[in-house]
């Protein structure tokens, strides 16, 4: 049983990576938002488990913020945005889903290689946590790169931020003030992006970012 705490931490962090892949795999807008909520739920579970094994009560607050803000408020708000804007319910991807997933596997392998080299002397718990967190961050970036629709790019950004929180929870000693400010900056970012979505839509009648490229003269 002495390995139990480690195994559960590993399981939850591994689940985060898996749900990141599910985000990449989704091709429906509402499905994407549901999976994003699941991502946040797994994140809050993982952070709560870290709080328990590190006996760091302030991490419970982080877990609570993740649960309320990211698993409930942001998905519901995004869902409203999607309904009000009347966005297409299917998601356009650059390249197919298959190549994207393969690229994602490459990124996971890369983050394992980098992290295991970089943190050779660290505590194994923090080590695996950082490796998983880096994969989640890279997968979020990949999602932002491969989606054409602004809403799914926002989801990619939020999942990237989940990866940052996972890293912060695993590395002992991140102050609560920083975490709360990060959480609120994400909320602010979400609001700003939301406003932008409406402005883009007013201007171009679409939230497809190709319209922006045309406007900037990058594409004839």
């Amino acid at each position, binding site marked *: 049983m002495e*390995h*139990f705490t*480690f*195994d*559960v931490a*590993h*399981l939850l*962090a*591994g*689940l985060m*990576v*898996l749900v990141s*892949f599910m985000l990449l*795999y989704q091709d429906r807008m509402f499905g994407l938002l549901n999976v994003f909520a699941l991502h946040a739920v797994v994140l809050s579970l993982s952070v709560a488990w870290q709080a328990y094994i590190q006996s760091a009560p302030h991490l419970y607050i982080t877990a609570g913020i993740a649960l309320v803000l990211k698993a409930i408020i942001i998905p519901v708000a995004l869902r409203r945005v999607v309904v009000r804007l009347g966005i297409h319910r299917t998601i356009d991807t650059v390249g197919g*889903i*298959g190549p994207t*997933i393969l690229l994602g*596997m490459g990124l*996971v*392998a890369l983050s*394992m290689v980098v*992290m*295991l080299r970089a943190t050779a002397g660290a505590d*194994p718990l923090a*080590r*695996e946590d950082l*490796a*998983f967190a880096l994969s989640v961050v890279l997968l979020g970036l990949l999602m932002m790169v491969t989606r054409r629709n602004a809403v799914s790019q926002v989801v990619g950004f939020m999942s990237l931020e989940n990866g940052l929180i996972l890293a912060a929870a695993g590395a002992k000693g991140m102050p609560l003030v920083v975490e709360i400010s990060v959480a609120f900056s994400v909320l602010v970012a979400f609001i700003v992006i939301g406003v932008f979505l409406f402005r883009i839509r007013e201007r171009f009648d679409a939230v497809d970012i190709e319209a922006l490229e045309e406007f900037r003269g990058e594409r004839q």
Partner: protein
Amino acid sequence: MLDLAVQGAQMLLVLALAPLLLGFTRKVKARLLGRQGPPIVQPYRDLARLMGKDAVLAENASWLFRCAPYLIFAATWVAAALIPTFATGLYFSWSADLIAITALLGSARFLLALAGMDVGTSFGGLGSSREMMFASLAEPAMIMIVFTVALVAGSTQLSAIAGFMLLHASLRVSLGLALVALTIVAIAENARIPVDNPATHLELTMVHEAMVLEYSGHHLALIELAAALKLLLYISLIACIFVPWGLAQSESGPVAYAIGTVTYLGKLAVGGFLLVVFETSIAKMRVFRVPEFLGAALMLGLLGTLLLFVSRSF
């Protein structure tokens, strides 16, 4: 000498149980759909009747078409008999290697696809090409699962893996991913519902049935029996790797073997029941979506292997 007898009992047990498992899944499925369903022993009757009939051969069938059923049956039976069902450490356990079992199943599939194309009807060719398309994704996925399990347990031999899992049962994310991936591969390999419908003869959707369309008589009986053995094989494989409790150790007495047999029957019943519940709750997917489904298995296997590198070692 006793070892050899136990191994022989195991070989006969899988052969005897395979049609029963098929009959059980059909019965449960019928009940879940609100029908009466055929009796559980119906597959035995079907096989007996097919065995008694003459095989009708197409005019341009070659020797391959006649040999293939025997070879397919033999390869599948050997593979199924190697998996520890009620006891580990049997006489032939040293050869019960996961890669060898995958290879045996692969050669059976190869022969079946060749036989499907041999007569030259378009359905057979269609079925063979689809089967090969699925196989090109299912086999790498299976190999990745084997890697994951072998890296965890330190061996590709099933008896050793089962023994390891009994000792070090724990919550490992890689093993969970491997279990899901193996389930997906098992569903695809056995032509069960989201991939192929085992009960249909509707030409647009069939894969396995299209390949065996030209077979009749005792050839068909052998192929049907091989298909039943394959289903039993995959359920036993999942049970042996992920739920090894109740398996008798080598050199233990008849009581342990009896307990092992009873738990094995229980595992088969649970496995068959879960399969049927899954099948009745899902619709068949289009053929061109199957690669995505199998690709998910490949991805899970790959991810499971990758995650092992940040995991603790035993």
